[in-house]
C-alpha cells in the first residue's frame, strides 16, 4: 500500500519509454528526499541502539560472569539453554505472562472509557487531562513509597478500609501471597500506564472523520450502537497501537515489582530476574541472554499486533 503519486502524474496513463520521463524524475525525487528524511533516524538508531545491541548479544554468547576474572569463552547458545532450564527463570516467564494478560485487559478497557469521555474538547478538559497524567508523571520511587503505605500489612490503607468494612477479620499480608500480590502489582502498573494508553486512544479518536458520525446519527443509531459498530472498528489502528504499547510495557514490567516486593520469588517478572542476574549476581552473560529471550518474546507479541494492524488497514 502507500502513496502512488507518481502513477497519477502521467495523464496519458501509459508506461513511458524515455528515461527522463516525468514519472522517473518524480520517483527519483521521492527516493532522494525519502532517504534524506530517514537518514537521521537510521544513523541515530544504528549507533546508539543497534551497535550496543550487537555487542550485548556477543556478550550473551560468552561464558557466564565473564566479568569475574579470566578471558571470556565462547559458549554459543549455552547461556540461553541454562537460563531456560532454571526454575526461577521459568517462574518469571509465567508471572510475566499473567501480568501481561491482566494489565492489557484492564488498560484497554479503562483507556477506551477514558478516551471516549475526553476526546471532545470541552471547558476544563485541560485540567482533567493534567490530573489524568499525574500517575504517569509521578516518579516510580515515590509512587512505590505511597503504594507501600496502601498495601502495608499493619496499618495500610487497604487493610484499614477492609477492616472498617468488615470484609476481613485480620490484616492480610498482601504481597506475600501468590495470587493477590500479582493482582495488586498489576493494578499499580495499570494505574501508572492508563494515562499513556488513554492519550493514544484520544489521539486516535481525534483523527476519525466527523462525517461518519453525523451520517449515522441521522440514521437514528444510538450512541452505544454507534460506538460498537462504527467507532470501534474505525479505531482499530489506534487500539492496536495501544495494545502493542501496553503489551510491550507489561512484558517489561519491573519498577512496580522492585518497589513493592523487591526480588521476592512470588512476584518476579522476567526483567526482575534479569536485574537479579545482572546486577546482583554480576552475571551479565546469563542476564543478557535472558534479556534477549525477553526481546524475542516481545518481538513475537509485537509481530502479532503488527499483523492485526496490517489487516485492519484495508
Amino acid at each position, binding site marked *: 500500500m502507500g502513496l502512488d503519486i507518481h502513477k497519477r502524474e502521467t495523464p496519458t496513463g501509459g508506461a513511458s519509454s524515455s528515461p527522463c520521463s516525468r514519472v522517473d524524475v518524480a520517483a527519483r525525487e521521492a527516493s532522494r528526499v525519502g532517504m534524506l528524511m530517514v537518514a537521521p533516524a537510521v544513523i541515530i538508531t544504528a549507533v546508539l541502539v543497534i551497535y550496543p545491541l550487537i555487542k550485548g548479544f556477543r556478550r550473551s554468547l560468552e561464558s557466564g560472569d565473564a566479568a569475574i576474572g579470566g578471558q571470556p569463552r565462547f559458549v554459543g547458545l549455552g547461556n540461553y539453554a541454562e537460563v531456560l532450564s532454571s526454575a526461577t527463570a521459568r517462574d518469571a516467564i509465567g508471572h510475566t505472562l499473567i501480568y501481561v494478560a491482566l494489565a492489557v485487559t484492564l488498560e484497554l478497557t479503562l483507556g477506551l472509557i477514558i478516551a471516549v469521555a475526553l476526546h471532545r474538547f470541552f471547558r476544563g478538559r485541560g485540567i482533567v487531562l493534567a490530573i489524568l497524567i499525574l500517575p504517569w508523571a509521578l516518579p516510580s520511587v515515590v509512587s512505590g513509597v505511597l503504594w507501600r503505605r496502601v498495601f502495608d*500489612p499493619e496499618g495500610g490503607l487497604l487493610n484499614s478500609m477492609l477492616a472498617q468494612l468488615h470484609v476481613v477479620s485480620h*490484616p492480610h*499480608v498482601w504481597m506475600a501471597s501468590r495470587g493477590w500480590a500479582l493482582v495488586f502489582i498489576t493494578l499499580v502498573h495499570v494505574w501508572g500506564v492508563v494515562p499513556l494508553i488513554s492519550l493514544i486512544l484520544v489521539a486516535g479518536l481525534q483523527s476519525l472523520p466527523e462525517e461518519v458520525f453525523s451520517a449515522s446519527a441521522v440514521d437514528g443509531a444510538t450512541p452505544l450502537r454507534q460506538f460498537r459498530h462504527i467507532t470501534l472498528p474505525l479505531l482499530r489502528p489506534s487500539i492496536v497501537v495501544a495494545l502493542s504499547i501496553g503489551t510491550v510495557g507489561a512484558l517489561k514490567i519491573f519498577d512496580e515489582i522492585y518497589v513493592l*516486593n523487591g526480588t*521476592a520469588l512470588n512476584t518476579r517478572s522476567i526483567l526482575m530476574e534479569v536485574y537479579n542476574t545482572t546486577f546482583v549476581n554480576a552475571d551479565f552473560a546469563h542476564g543478557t541472554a535472558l534479556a534477549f529471550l525477553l526481546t524475542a518474546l516481545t518481538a513475537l507479541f509485537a509481530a502479532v499486533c503488527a499483523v492485526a494492524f496490517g489487516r485492519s488497514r484495508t
Partner: protein
Amino acid sequence: MKRARCGVLSMVVCAAVLVIAACDGGYGEGRSGFAPRGKVLIEGQEINVLLPYKVPGRLLDEFTRETGVKVNVNVTSWDAVHSKLIVANTAKTYVADVTELDWSFTGQFAAAGWYEPLEKVLDPVLITDLSQADAALTVGGHTYGACYSNDYRLSLYNGRMFRAAGVSEFPKTFAELGPVVAKLKASGVRYPLGIPMAATEGGVTPWYLLTLAMGGELFDKDYKPLFTDPGSAGYRALQFEVDALKNGWVSPGSVTLDNGPVFDQFAAGSSAILFASSPGNLSTANDPKESSIAPEAQPALVPGVRGPGTTFGLPEGLAIPVTAKHKDAARAFIEWWMQPATLRVLYKEAGMLPCRSSVLTSMAHSGEIEGGTVVGDELAHVVPLFGQGAPKWYGQFSSTAQGLLNAAVKGDVSVGAALTQLAAKATELAGS
C-alpha cells in the same frame, strides 16, 4: 542506476556497523601502579569520588588546600551504587578514582580484579589501625578497601516499654529472651520483636546474625555449608525466625518488611526490640524530629548462647578501581580522610562511625559516641561474616538465600528443605 547504488550504499553502511560492533575490542584503560608520594606529583589534578553519602563541602575544600587536588563527590543513591559500579567495571571504563566498596561487594569485585589492593599502598600505620574493620574487606590476603563507615549489627530496645513491662535488663542470652518477650506481650506490646524478613539483603542479614549469635558459622574454611544439620546454628537460626512468626513475637507483616519499615515501626513505638540494628539507627531513633520514642532508644549487646553473642561487621570502605585515572591523588584522598581530626568531624556531621581502632577507642572513652560504652563494647564481639574471606559468589548466594528464607518464613517451604536447597546452591557456586 542511482537506485541500485543507493541500495548498495545502505547495505554497506549497515554491514560496516555490524562489523565494527562485532570486532570492537575493549575500552579505555587506567594507569597501573602507584608512584612515590609527593605533593608536586598530584597538584592540580581533579578526582571523582563515588559515594552514597554527602561529604561536608568545607572538608573537601580543606583537602584541596592541603594537596592542590580538586574533589568531585558523585553522590549516588544507596541502591544504585552497586549497579553503577558493576556496569562501569564490566565495561572496563573509568567511573571514578575512589569508589564505595561495601563489604558485600568485596568477594565479587576482588575476584574480578577490578580494584587495587591497598595493603602495600597505604600508610602501614593506617593499615594496622584499620585491620579489624578491614577484615571484611580483605580477600586472599589483599585488602581492597579502607573502611570509612563502621557498621555492625547491634540490638536496640525501647527503654520505656521495658520499664512498663517490668523488665530491668536487656536479655543477655536467648534463654532469657523468651520470658522478656512474654512480659512485653503481657504489658500490651502486641509484637515486641522487630526483625525484617522480606526477600531482601536487609531481610537475610538477621539470619546471618542469628547464626553467629547462636555460636555457629555459615561455612567452614573450605566454604562447605554448615547449616543443613538440625543441630547447627544456621538451622536453629532459621527455626527461630519461623517460630518467632508463629508465636507472635514478630508481626505477620514482617515477611514483606525490609530494614527501613521495621525501623519505622520501632521508631513509632510499635515494637520494643530491634534485634539486628546498627549504631546509626540509634542516633535516628533518639532524634525527636525522626522518632516518636526519643530519647528512649537504648543500645544493647546482641544476645548469645551463654552470654553476649557474636555479631558481624558490614563495613563500607573507600577503594581505588584499576580504571582510576589519578591513583596517587586517590591514595592521598584516602589517607587524608583517615586522619583522626577528619574522622571526628565526619562522625559528628555525617554520622559515619570511624573504623580506626585507635580513634574509635578514644572517642568511646571521651563520650563522643552516642550509646558510648555499649557501642564500644559490642566491637569486642564483631567478626567478619566470612572469616575465610568473602567469596566471589557471595552476591548469588545472598540473593538465593533471600528467596529461599523468605519462602521458609512464609511457610511455602519447610526450614529443612529451604536450607538444603540453599546448601546445594552454595556448593554449586563454590565448586564453579
